[in-house]
């Protein structure tokens, strides 16, 4: 160790090139991923995946005539269900609504959580755009949403047959996502 041979010194001089090259490859992969959607610096996975949803019980949305639900209603349904957090003031929720209606028509149980909303606004939203929800709970203070780790509305979760969270999507469900979603909900 007392002296460095010339070749060892040479290796050291190549270090900047090697580091820059590796970083460049990494950035290249990131840019490729950004373009095809596989790398998304904002797509944060839910901490709930593979776990049971948290314990909660929601009141019903006043005057909506839909049964409310609690954590127990997600278990033992015999089939996967979709839990959707939404609000009438949320613009992307309007974009996503036709997809929820389609799932509802196909017989998928869609459970809605009405997030920080006024009951009257929620009711008129459902009257105007149609009601896709088999059950609907009101989360006026937004506390249940925090229990789930919700970022904002709209946000959707697929609960599997075993009662565990299989999938989460933060943002509106788009038409392109439907085939994958149908497969998850089958």
């Amino acid at each position, binding site marked *: 160790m007392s002296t460095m041979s010339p070749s060892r010194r040479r290796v050291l001089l190549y270090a900047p090139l090697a580091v820059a090259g590796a970083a460049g490859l990494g950035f290249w992969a990131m840019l490729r991923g950004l373009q095809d959607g596989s790398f998304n610096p904002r797509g944060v996975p839910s901490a709930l995946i593979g776990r049971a949803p948290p314990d909660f019980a929601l009141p019903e949305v006043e005057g909506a005539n839909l049964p409310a639900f609690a954590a127990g209603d997600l278990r033992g349904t015999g089939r996967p269900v979709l839990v959707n957090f939404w609000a009438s003031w949320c613009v992307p929720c309007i974009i996503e609504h036709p997809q929820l209606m389609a799932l509802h028509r196909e017989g998928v149980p869609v459970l809605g959580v009405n997030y920080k909303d006024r009951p009257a606004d929620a009711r008129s939203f459902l009257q105007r755009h149609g009601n896709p929800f088999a059950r609907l709970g009101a989360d006026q203070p937004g506390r249940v949403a925090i229990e789930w*780790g919700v970022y904002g509305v709209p946000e959707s979760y697929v609960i599997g047959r075993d009662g565990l969270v299989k999938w989460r999507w933060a943002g509106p469900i788009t038409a392109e996502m439907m085939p994958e979603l149908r497969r998850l909900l089958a």
Partner: protein
Amino acid sequence: MTRLLLLLALLLAAPAHAQIGDTTYRLEDPALEARARAVGRELRCLVCQNQSIEDSDASLARDLRILVREQIAAGASDEETLRFVHQRYGDFVLLRPPVGIHTVLLWATPVLFLGGGLIAIVLTRRRRAATGIGDTELSAEEKARLARLEGPPPP
């Protein structure tokens, strides 16, 4: 990507309530409030860009601020409060990444670079010493040169 950002902007915009927060979010006891704030500075506002929940106007950040204060007021320790939020929102919410197999390189960076640099310096000096050039007293020529570069300008 652009569309996603647009959507996120919409998410951030609603429901437009408070700009800077509400007095009810502060705890009466200054010691507890100081603790709550220190905890809040460790938590990322998830829908913002690199801001802590203490520094954000977003609705989620406000909800989390209340949550942190409720936990602290209920007697939870700082660690318990952080764990509570961590369990629900995952690693991403922690601005101080937890030390673990995935972050060991990150946390080791200061030691690795400082240590690596020191070793490189020592090795270079040893090699230099082995080739044996010169003594470490300034020669007359070097002194004159430094005086020319550093001394007062010639009149």
